[in-house]
């Protein structure tokens, strides 16, 4: 099987523009969540979000394109891909709702004045309405002429997109792919989460007894993927190998996850199988950790069953819930979690679960507070995500020099 590696990273998040800004916040155990600025959160009795407040919103501009462009700038500089390499590169992105705020603007206008002719400005907004438009925009922006796909699987969108991208390279559909995800913070999505009782009253506290919901964020997270052979041939920096991926459905309920985590367990086992690893090989876990009662409980049940198989039953790898720092970036979450896992491999740090006080699994190590230097080599990380509708994903990220 062709080995596919990550050779470049780029991201924008509530922590700022750039991977170093995000990693610094996470490693320090400092949350990047900030007061809601896009609308008055107090009206929902909610105060914080993971907005990229360091970026001014341009009037009429597309927030998703703004996020993607900045992430792409860093990605290209980091990867060293030039125009010649980009020309046949694929672009595979995940998103939950795409440029939803533009659609929000359009409909506010048309709901009031349905007979009014569309302006030129409207056309640009309409064009961005389709969730898949971000992928096309990025491909054009980068000059990437290879395979393109947009995965719309809510919170597992970008992790499934990474699986799809790896598959394209392994099958020879293209030699390299830009993959990841994007999401903008919008009142529409916030309202939806609020209506279903999923928003936290305060911070996002994954795996805490007192957790009471999630905090929505925004961001764009991109990676360059290519074959190990190509990366070595051009002397590229190799961050990690995406050694395996899996995704599986619960078929349990339209919105609630299988409370036993059956789908997540199957996704993890599929990723194990693809990577040729088992529970004993996993050195760290990046969990979805939304801070909701259902999700975190379900995840723990799945992890408990899987890692029970390890000979030393107490050897549950440290588990990180990075959404406590960045918020839940929905369509970008899988790629963001994977990026933090890759940096954990690079710097040999267990990323923290910030704001954790009373763990729902007291004997497990959720790395509360700040990051923790590895007391043993971190060679393989499991990164998991789950979504409304019962969709689950898992990625196995491995240090190349450890394989």
């Amino acid at each position, binding site marked *: 099987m062709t080995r596919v590696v990550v050779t470049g990273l780029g991201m924008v998040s509530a922590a700022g523009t750039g991977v170093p800004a995000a990693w610094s916040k996470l490693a320090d155990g400092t949350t990047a969540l900030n007061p809601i600025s896009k609308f008055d959160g107090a009206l929902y009795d909610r105060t914080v979000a993971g907005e990229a407040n360091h970026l001014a919103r341009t009037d009429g501009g597309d927030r998703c394109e703004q996020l993607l462009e900045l992430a792409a700038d860093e990605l290209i500089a980091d990867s060293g891909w030039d125009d010649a390499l980009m020309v046949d590169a694929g672009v595979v992105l995940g998103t939950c709702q795409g440029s939803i705020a533009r659609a929000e603007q359009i409909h506010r206008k048309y709901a009031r004045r349905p007979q009014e002719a569309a302006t030129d400005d409207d056309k640009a907004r309409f064009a961005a309405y389709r969730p898949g438009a971000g992928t096309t925009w990025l491909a054009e922006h980068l000059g990437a002429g290879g395979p393109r796909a947009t995965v719309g699987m809510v919170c597992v969108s970008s992790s499934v997109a990474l699986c799809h991208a790896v598959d394209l390279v392994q099958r020879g559909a293209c030699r390299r792919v830009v993959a990841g995800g994007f999401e903008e913070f919008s009142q529409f*999505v916030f309202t939806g*989460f609020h*209506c*279903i009782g999923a928003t936290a009253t305060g911070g996002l506290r994954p795996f805490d007894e007192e957790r009471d919901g999630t905090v929505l964020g925004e961001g764009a997270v991109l990676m360059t993927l290519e074959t190990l052979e190509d990366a070595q041939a051009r002397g590229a920096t190799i961050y990690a190998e995406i050694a395996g991926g899996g995704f599986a*459905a619960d078929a349990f*309920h339209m919105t609630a996850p299988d409370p036993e985590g059956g789908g997540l367990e199957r996704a993890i086992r599929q990723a194990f199988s693809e990577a040729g690893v088992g529970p004993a090989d996993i050195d760290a876990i990046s969990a979805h950790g939304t801070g909701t009662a259902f999700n975190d409980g379900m995840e723990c049940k799945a992890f408990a069953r899987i890692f029970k198989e390890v000979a030393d039953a107490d050897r549950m790898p440290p588990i990180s819930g990075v959404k406590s720092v960045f918020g839940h970036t929905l369509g970008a979450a899988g790629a963001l979690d994977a990026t933090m896992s890759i940096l954990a491999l690079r710097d040999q740090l267990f990323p923290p679960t910030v704001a954790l006080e009373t763990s729902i699994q007291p004997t497990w190590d959720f790395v509360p507070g700040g990051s923790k230097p590895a007391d043993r080599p971190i060679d393989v990380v499991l990164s998991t995500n789950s979504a409304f*509708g019962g969709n689950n994903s898992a990625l196995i990220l491995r240090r190349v020099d450890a394989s």
Partner: protein
Amino acid sequence: MTDDRIFVTGVGAGTPFGLGVDALLDGMLAGESRVVALAEPHGSLAPGYGGEVTLKARDLRSLPNSRDMRPGTMTRYTFLSTLALGSAMAEGEIPWDDGDGALRRGFYVASYTNSDRFDKYVRFAHHVIDKDADGKPVIVDERVPTAIRKFSGFEFLKLMNNMPTAHGGIQGRCQGPCNTFLGSPSGGLQAIGRAKLAIQDGLADTMYAGGVGSSIHPQMMMVRATRKLESSSDVAPDQAGRPFDQDATGIVPGEAGGCIVLERASTATARGANARAELAGYGEWFTPPSVNRGVPPTPAGPVRAMRRALERAGLEAKDVDVVFAHGESNNDLDRIEALALAETLGPRSADVPVVSMTAHVGSTEAAVGPLNAALAVRVLETGKVPGALNRGNPLPEYKGPNGAAPMDIDAKVALVSVTTREGIAAAVVLRKIE
């Protein structure tokens, strides 16, 4: 990876002709168009006609494992997707209640978007937003609790783009790989191609693969109107959809869901399934994108997609007996597609029938590929090929037959192709099982 062949054991559809692929094929063989004047005009934004699906909740509930499904919790996209999936499950006699069999089943579906009811949220915003003395918008505190009560969480969740997969996964009892592809009319064929790979990679034994389109709602109508892609309203509705015809004036709104059931040959054989055709090959190709501006400059993309599909099927252009094409009814894109067909089929272009359903049901977005694949399966079974409706003045680039009368042919190989303005071309090859 296994070497097993992939059989199609069921096809399903929800179209303006009703439930099931036979209803669609019968209507097309009869030369009917279901593009009609819509009961509710959509302001000044649309031509006022389209191919509308009139199926109801009771139609869905008549399908396997669908009795408890609630269309009230679905958008139009999701509803159409579940109709198509249920219809395919019924024809395939899928043993959906087979316990652990669910672990080996998956569902891939394609859709432009799933947000046809977004207007409700705008009404929410309108409910809570007012203007202050300076005319600036402000949120009125006391209205928020009322607005929140009016909006159940399910109204929001309906709009998540994975909801066709989520509902379909429950309906079809799929606990294997499930995915939603967004953004292009070729997405439905991409879903089929990826589903084939999922079986060949050993991730599943049975995959449902489909696509859904719903362009008769304000959102998509506004998009097309502003991009000036809609058909003119100066022609009769049943004359509006004109694939590969010089007199075409633009895209005709339509809606539909299409789905096929793919099974590993050994699985299908073991359960005594009716193997209706073999999914022999899949190909895709990408032209560098130009965001919403025009169409691909050359036919190279669709040509490569079709050739790749044929190559993977171990076939050549000379083996193709019938083609199912997109035929968007927009001259710019239809010219490119016609050139691609002529280049791919070569000297046989003049003889190979080219079927397009656009004249019959309008543009069905991401459903077009799976619907055409489903039609192709039926044509391979019956040998009955619909005529070319509304193609009396073909584009010079179009070299195929354009007779309106249906044909009887001994079709053994069908080529299904979707060419898109997004520059994503996809094709599948279906072969008759002798």
